[in-house]
């Protein structure tokens, strides 16, 4: 059995496992996507955001 067939049989064939796969993928995709774009935004605006200056004011 090739990898694609295994994945198909295990995850995509039944509606229940298919939906579970979709939900799980959504979760991980969203976390990585948000994480990386937020990281990029913070890098682009290094030193300007509250995040970067708050240690000056927190005791």
């Amino acid at each position, binding site marked *: 059995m090739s990898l694609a067939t295994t994945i198909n049989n295990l995850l995509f064939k039944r509606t229940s496992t298919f939906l579970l796969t979709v939900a799980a993928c959504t979760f991980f995709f969203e976390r990585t996507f948000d994480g990386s774009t937020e990281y990029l935004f913070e890098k682009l605006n290094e030193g*300007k955001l509250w995040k970067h*200056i708050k240690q000056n004011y927190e005791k």
Partner: protein
Amino acid sequence: MAASVGRICGAKLLKRNTTNVITQISSFSTVREWAGNNRKLLTSLGIVAGGAGALIFALDQSVKASELELHAPEYPWSHSGYLASLDHASIRRGYEVYKNVCAACHSMRFMCYRNLVGVSHTEDEAKAEAAEVQVMDGPNELGEMFERPGKLSDHFPSPYPNEQAARAANNGAFPPDLTYIVSARHGAEDYIFSLLTGYCDAPAGVQLREGQYYNPYFTGGATSMAQAIYDEVIEYEDGTPAYASQLAKDICTFLKWAAEPEHDQRKQMLLKSFFMFSFLCIISFYYKRHKWTVLKSRKIEFRPKSKKC
């Protein structure tokens, strides 16, 4: 209505008209009936009169001092650009300028102390800022209003109890609420920066009334707001040299944030949607090609049935 249109156009509207538009128009024109010479004379007279009128108007405008207002140039803000966030250290300094200078005349009724938390101040600092002001609260059990130190949920205090009091104290002019002023003026923060730093002596011939000041960026030139920003009018707590241009830049950044508190998040959203929609674009392109392969690669043939079979 239909009757009068009918009377003007006669039966022409009812006729089927196969000729082109030009001939249609000329058939409505009355110029056709003029003698040839007359027509030429009138046309050239019209052109000369129109040209002379335009020339006189232009000459007249060029010597009038009516358009003395300046339009604010575009400044390179630290937040200009599609992905540039606001400079939060500048917002914090701008709040200092507002509190120590502008708040004497201008309200910011729609801002609360809690809005500062996580933007320019820590929670403790914002609480301390709020506690500095006295807020009217009540009524208590005796039905009396009382004053208490401000809390995070309180709005910024207004310098005047109502518009009339503000006008009475400012020579009849109303200092507008500054919360949304950046969105409310053409030129936004560029305009406000120019306004704050643009005071100068009135040019010869401009009459200022008592209590008015000349500012070429203000509509009409005469404003009732005295110059508020000078070098070192306040001292910054973070030690930034408080030159007039620095003060004006910081207050503008602060006002920009006040008018668009979602500014940073919006720009971050742009970044996210750029990646997300590029991704979706590629997928839909692929999906379309995928689904159309069958349609694109098939052939349809027409074979008429012969009578025999």
